[in-house]
């Protein structure tokens, strides 16, 4: 029987933010911190497939919508990595998470729930993510006949929100991204794509895709890891 998805919410800054949940098990409740911005869109389908497989193994998986993303009523331009870190802490507590799993840029904010065991797949540096976002904007502008330099964009970003790859980012977010690296955590399993977990870096592609084998690989690894954590 395929597990049915259900929504919960967690409170943050006066809003009820969405959480997509799969699975009914209470022993292992994994909070999933998705990749950021456009990478999240590209990975979402495969990530939810992985959650379905996990649910079949009796694990509860909870994929949060960060404030300002998807259907959140909070404005994206008011967010920053610091704010998102706090939101993760709120979510972990409110959802009674036992483990935290993050992908790509999710690793830049997962220390918001520092006390729990962590798992990271292909952690990304904020500067690298920002660079790609800036380049996407520059390339798009060039196609439209507007020449803008990276320096001009960075200067504009410090003065007010700018649109990058369809995301309206405020000065605090851009500044946070520029310097952010995944925090060093005491209990953290790091996974490299292609080595520890089989699959393709779907988050790099220009179009969203899905990869059933990768979903299985992610689920199997999370299942093994979370079971071992409990000792």
């Amino acid at each position: 029987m395929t597990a049915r998805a259900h929504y919960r919410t967690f409170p943050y800054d006066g809003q009820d933010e969405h959480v997509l949940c799969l699975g009914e098990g209470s022993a292992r409740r994994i909070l999933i911190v998705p990749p950021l911005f456009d990478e999240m869109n590209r990975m979402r389908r495969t990530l939810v497939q992985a959650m379905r497989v996990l649910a079949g193994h009796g694990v509860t998986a909870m994929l949060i919508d960060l404030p300002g993303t998807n259907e959140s009523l909070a404005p994206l331009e008011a967010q920053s990595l610091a704010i998102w870190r706090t939101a993760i802490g709120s979510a972990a507590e409110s959802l009674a998470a036992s483990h935290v799993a993050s992908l790509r840029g999710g690793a830049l904010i997962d220390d918001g729930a520092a006390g729990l065991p962590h798992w990271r797949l292909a952690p990304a540096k904020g500067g690298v993510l920002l660079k790609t976002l800036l380049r996407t904007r520059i390339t798009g502008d060039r196609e439209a006949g507007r020449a803008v330099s990276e320096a001009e964009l960075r200067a504009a970003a410090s003065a007010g929100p700018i649109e990058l790859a369809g995301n309206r980012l405020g000065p605090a977010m851009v500044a946070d991204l520029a310097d952010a690296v995944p925090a060093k955590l005491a209990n953290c399993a790091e996974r490299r794509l292609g080595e520890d977990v089989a699959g393709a870096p779907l988050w790099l592609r220009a179009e969203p895709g899905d990869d059933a084998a990768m979903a299985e690989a992610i689920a199997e690894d999370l299942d093994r890891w979370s079971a071992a954590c409990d000792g």
Partner: protein
Amino acid sequence: MPFVPDSVETVLRDLLVDVLGVAPATVAAMTDDTPLFGALPELDSMAVAGLLTEMEDRLEIIIDDDDIDGDLFETFGSLVAFAKAKVDG
């Protein structure tokens, strides 16, 4: 210097598979003369952004806006030559 010149080409082949999702067999068959931008449907202007950033990350180089002109992605050979020059430079 972290990279031996021969392996720059291997990194780029891996990148075309990873970032553009081009079939491994297609990439393995590429020679210096194989046309890229305009000939490879997976390489459109939006894909360029991701490709450039991954090149920087994997080859440990910096690519400036000024470095990027129409010829860079003209052929597989032009891309490899550019990357090797950056790694050596």
